[in-house]
């Protein structure tokens, strides 16, 4: 797992973005021609509350090095409380990841509103840099 480390390693990131805030924020980043790393594969979901922990572990098992979950700011959820559920879920999932030997920073939750194209750009930049430091995901060993 260390042979692809260093600068040549390009992490694969799956981003689950809620359609009301974060996906619109990502859209704004694109429309505004903000430049961010191409490592991220955006997936639109109706609400960050729709992202269940099994979806995160599944994409990690299928080769993602990190998972970004974007939701509406607290109090702004289109479905009232989906983002609060996600927050608790991600916290438990991070504890599980850590115990299983996976750096919990591989899962990142961020509140990004529809007007925050810049925040989306900064988040993807920061997350990509972080994952380059962490190297390829250790999930899914073949031995």
């Amino acid at each position, binding site marked *: 797992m260390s042979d692809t480390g260093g600068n040549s390693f390009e992490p694969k990131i799956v981003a689950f973005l809620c359609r009301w805030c974060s996906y619109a924020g990502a859209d704004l980043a694109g429309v505004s021609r903000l430049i961010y790393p191409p490592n991220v594969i955006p997936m639109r979901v109706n609400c960050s509350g729709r992202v269940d922990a099994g979806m995160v*572990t599944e994409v990690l098992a299928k080769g993602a090095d990190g998972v970004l979950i974007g939701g509406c700011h607290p109090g702004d959820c289109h479905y009232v409380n989906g983002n609060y*559920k996600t927050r*608790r879920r991600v916290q438990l*999932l991070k504890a*599980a990841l850590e115990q*299983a030997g996976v750096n919990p920073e591989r899962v990142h939750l961020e509140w990004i509103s529809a007007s925050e194209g810049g925040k989306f750009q900064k988040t993807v930049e920061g997350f990509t840099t972080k994952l380059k430091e962490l190297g390829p995901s*250790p*999930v899914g*060993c073949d031995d």
Partner: protein
Amino acid sequence: MTKLKLGIYWAASCGGCDVSLLEVDEQILDLAAAADIVLWPCAADVKYDDLREYPDGWIDLVLFNGAIRTQENLELAQLLRKKARNLVAYGSCAHTGGVIGLANLSSREEIFSTLFKDHDPIPTEVSQVDGCSLELPQFLNRLTPLDAVVSVDYYIPGCPPPREIISAVLEAVISGKLPEKGTVFASEKNLCDECPRERTEQPITKIYRPHEIEADPEICLLDQGLICLGPATRGGCGAACPNANMPCTGCAGPTAGVTDQGAAMLNTIASLIGVGEEGEAVLQDEDAILQEIEDVIGTFYRFSLASSALGSVCRE
């Protein structure tokens, strides 16, 4: 009518699955009348060399209990796959890795150094004793359920499988009416569906471990702050543990269509945690409740770690 040929094998298991077969009481006599047991290391003396001599597909049904932990487990799984027309993963360890799958949280070296800490030497695969060479099967890097190494025709969940399920399987075997391949012999629904407890829809404000409180026998255990894996676990046992006033620990594996049982339960608990109205004011209180869960993997993945993504993490 020719008699059926039945095999029972144990890999990495505790022996409880072999014993559980006898729970069917006198039905075991019907089985003995309908089938010859051609392999059962726990109860009868059959040599592996004899087994290799059997023609391929010669054994009608093999009940395989235990997980794949050593090279011997792996080789026998592959051999039995060839010799059996129907290979059945019997019990939690063969089905989802079982409680021993939690060993995947440690590397092989960590396991050995803990287990043989004060022993010298640590057993190796080949040892020289009095001029003779002794061989032990290789201890694999990771524990896996049966279907990670060979294709499996049927699954019988449970630790050990409950009497009703074993009985139904034996009846299907004796009558020759086996269901569609891939069938899990249990309910399609979760445990809550057959649990008699009353749901009061209370949010969880404090998490308890089973020894800390005496649970009300009528009310849902989750409502009382006990982590019961019922919502994420396949039914079929008649909610045996909740009926004994103990929370379900998830031995029957995930419900139909779900692959990650631990993640499913983690979602459930995250949704049930609540202190007053959700909002920024209570975030810290929510965190405090979540932090009460001492062993997240051991709680949510107790029987399913080896069959989940988190049970396949590369270790140094």
